[in-house]
């Protein structure tokens, strides 16, 4: 019989500090930025109009701040989907999300992400995992640090 504690304990604590090989590059295109901006109601023309973006000092249209998550999640799948990590994805809830932007993600970027498991802790029946992904551009320069806390719910 599986108790709540046992379900949560299935998350493998040995993965703390583990870094996965770089994932990508993911090419950022203007249409994807426009679609994402529309979906979150971001109406600033720097998301859709290259001329407006250049007037604001950017080489091309820029992504809304939270669009980094779309690349982050493709990179962190290596960890979340790792059978040895013991994460039951059907029990995963997004607990917390943080972005540090070193510069805006811009159309034409080739972004590569490196995911590290920063921490795993128990909170009652749940396991909470801090997953950090460092996104860099084609020259290896920092673009965004994205940190997700995922909660793997214990219990039935």
């Amino acid at each position, binding site marked *: 019989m599986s108790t709540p504690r046992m379900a949560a304990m299935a998350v493998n604590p040995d993965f703390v500090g583990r870094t996965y090989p770089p994932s990508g590059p993911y090419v950022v295109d203007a249409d994807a930025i426009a*679609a994402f901006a529309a979906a979150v109601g971001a109406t*600033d023309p720097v998301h859709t109009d290259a001329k407006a973006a250049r007037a604001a000092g950017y080489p091309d249209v820029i992504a809304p701040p939270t669009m980094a998550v779309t690349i982050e999640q493709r990179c962190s799948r290596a960890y979340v989907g790792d059978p040895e990590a013991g994460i039951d994805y059907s029990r995963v809830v997004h607990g917390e999300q943080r972005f540090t*932007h070193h510069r805006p993600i811009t159309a034409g970027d080739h972004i590569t992400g490196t995911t590290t498991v920063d921490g795993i802790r128990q909170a009652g029946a749940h396991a909470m995992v801090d997953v950090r992904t460092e996104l860099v551009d084609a020259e290896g320069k920092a673009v965004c640090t994205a940190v997700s806390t995922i909660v793997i719910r214990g219990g039935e």
Partner: protein
Amino acid sequence: MTVRRVADVTVGEKLGPKTIPVRRDTLRAYAAASGDDNPIHQNEDFARQVGLPDVIAHGMWTMGATGTLVTEWAGDPGRIVAYGTRFTNMVVVPRTGSEIVVAGEVTDMDPGAGTATVAVTATAGGRDVLGRCTAVVRLG
């Protein structure tokens, strides 16, 4: 848009409130744009089967939509240098749609760095859906 400047900002300044509607087609658009096509955000039968009251919004939609309060205030979305939140409650989206109400307050300024910290709240049905939500803006 005009970039907000350090001289224009004071601690205690309020942003909003702003009411943002969310409908099923909003979530379909977010699913398509983000790649997060979990059926709990689109299919009410599926949502109920897994114990939810109805379709719920993607947490990242809520974070993204809430962020427009700050990006519009900043005058340039590229000036958000940090943005973080906890997800404390779900936004239930019945067939008739729903809305979130977002507001903010400047809680800190760093004149050396030229940044302002904005604490943000987001509620749905009177309940906080984001917790400890803050953004740091690089001012002009």
